[in-house]
């Protein structure tokens, strides 16, 4: 920075110093403008589009021409309920699968492994997490496809490979993708449990199984819920994986397809479904104490 610039900056800093209000506005103006104008503003425009009429001829939305047509479409056409149910089911299954798979490795990392091995395991879990999403999805495409790795593995037993159009593929691949997001919070949660609590439980006569059920599990539960926010939300909004490995439609696919076809009001109205589901999920997760474990 050159000298006269610094002088101006200094004068401004001196003027600012006793003025807390001005300081606050100086800090808050730009991020507030961004989050309100760009993000919340966009959400509002999306919400409005759900209730605006679409000109059938030009395929464009006419602002302030109010109608409930898109919402009625969503409610009355069964495909929207079926797809929402399918997405919700897979998101729940993925979350449960990841919790079950993550717990043993997280427990091993936090309470059994030596510090040295613990560090190595954290890196081993981080690497697949940082690997690109599409690279991992593509890897599963090669494994699951007709003459891929899985059908090679299964061929001695005379079982054909699954191919790329089975719904369970989406469950498998989404569970794979979000597993590290579940392992790390559970690991952190288990590591925070003080050793003295477990000793106290043992001193009071609890067997290892009882200590696990009555002490460790309740204390680790908020961490599981924290991890589930990732696995659930990321599965709920995904439209690439169902398309690429399962040839199935999720909520996101119908939003994307409707928007691509120029049917913005329906896309906007259907967006309300994951928003509402996620807001309910966040409120419940907050009551279960998940936000303190994030």
């Amino acid at each position, binding site marked *: 920075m050159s000298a006269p610039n610094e002088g101006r900056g200094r004068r401004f800093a*001196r003027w600012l110093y006793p003025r807390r209000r001005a300081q606050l506005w100086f800090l808050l103006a730009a991020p507030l403008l961004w989050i309100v104008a760009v993000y919340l503003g966009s959400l509002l425009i999306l919400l409005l589009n759900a209730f605006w009429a679409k000109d059938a001829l030009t395929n464009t939305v006419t602002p302030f021409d109010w109608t409930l047509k898109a919402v009625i479409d969503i409610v009355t056409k069964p495909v929207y309920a079926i797809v929402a149910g399918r997405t919700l089911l897979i998101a729940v299954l993925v979350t449960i699968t990841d919790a079950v798979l993550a717990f043993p*490795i997280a427990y091993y990392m936090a309470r*059994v492994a030596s510090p040295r091995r613990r560090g190595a395991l954290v890196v081993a879990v981080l690497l697949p997490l940082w690997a*690109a999403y599409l690279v991992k999805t593509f890897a599963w495409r090669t494994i699951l496809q007709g003459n891929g790795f899985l059908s090679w593995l299964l061929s001695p037993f005379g079982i054909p490979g699954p191919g790329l159009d089975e719904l369970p593929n989406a469950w498998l691949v989404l569970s*794979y993708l979000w597993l590290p997001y579940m392992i790390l919070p559970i690991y952190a949660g288990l590591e925070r449990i003080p050793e003295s609590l477990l000793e106290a439980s043992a001193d009071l006569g609890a067997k290892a199984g009882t200590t696990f059920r009555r002490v460790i599990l309740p204390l680790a539960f908020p961490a599981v819920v924290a991890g589930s926010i990732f696995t659930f939300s990321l599965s709920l*909004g995904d439209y690439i994986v169902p398309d690429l490995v399962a040839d199935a439609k999720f909520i996101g696919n119908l939003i994307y397809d409707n928007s691509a076809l120029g049917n913005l009001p329906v896309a906007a109205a259907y967006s309300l479904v994951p928003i509402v589901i996620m807001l309910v999920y966040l409120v419940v997760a907050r009551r279960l104490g998940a936000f303190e474990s994030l």
Partner: protein
Amino acid sequence: MTESAFVRVLLRVGTWLVLGFLYLPLIILAVYAFNPSRALAWPPPGLTLHWFAETATNPAVRAAFLNSIIAGAAATAIALVLGTLASLAVQRFSFFGRDTIAFALVLPIALPGVITGIALQTTFKTLGLNFGLMTIIIGHATFCVVIAYNNVVARLRRLPRTPEEASADLGADSWLTFRRITMPGMRTALLSGALLSFALSFDEIIVTLFTAGAGTQTIPIWIFTAIQRPTELPVVNVVALVLLLLSVIPVYLAQRIAGETARITR
């Protein structure tokens, strides 16, 4: 240790199985990069380095790579500035609506990406903006701001206030205090925020497909389109392996930053 020997063996086996599950797809993918055939049948009929040369000169891959780097750098820069300002405001001041702002700031990552995508696309269309690198950057910055904010706000919560007060008592103005005291304390949080922002932006497709328009490709968008064209598959394999190897860099950097952070805040 309360776990019995039997339980510990079970845990060890479970750990190895999960690690196998996490790494098997990555290993298979790495092998395919050397696959001479255009088809993806397993096992590959042989090994070749042919497709590496093909990939290095592929103009679409190179353009997409450049776009991804520009978008990542720009989104990260915006995110660091806005995220730091917001975290200083939320953490160092108390004011009406603070909790609301703190909540609004995490919404872009708490809500599914498809919502951010369709919302931004609708707005850009309504405003008549041209889709391209600019709209991609705006989309990425919305969730990168959250990442930067979260990192810095967590750090500010743990940094003691006394050095800042001492600095002010000794006659330093707010700018000098920020530069000499607050900034060095936040340094590693900013670094890890930048790392995470850039990596997220570099990897993003859910939002990007909505905000990119037809003419601009990032690396994820290129992969997404190329996957569905059989002739492009060998190049996809190589790009995938390169990205896989590149993801070692942020893991290494993150570990180093974490080590330094532990030293500072101890």
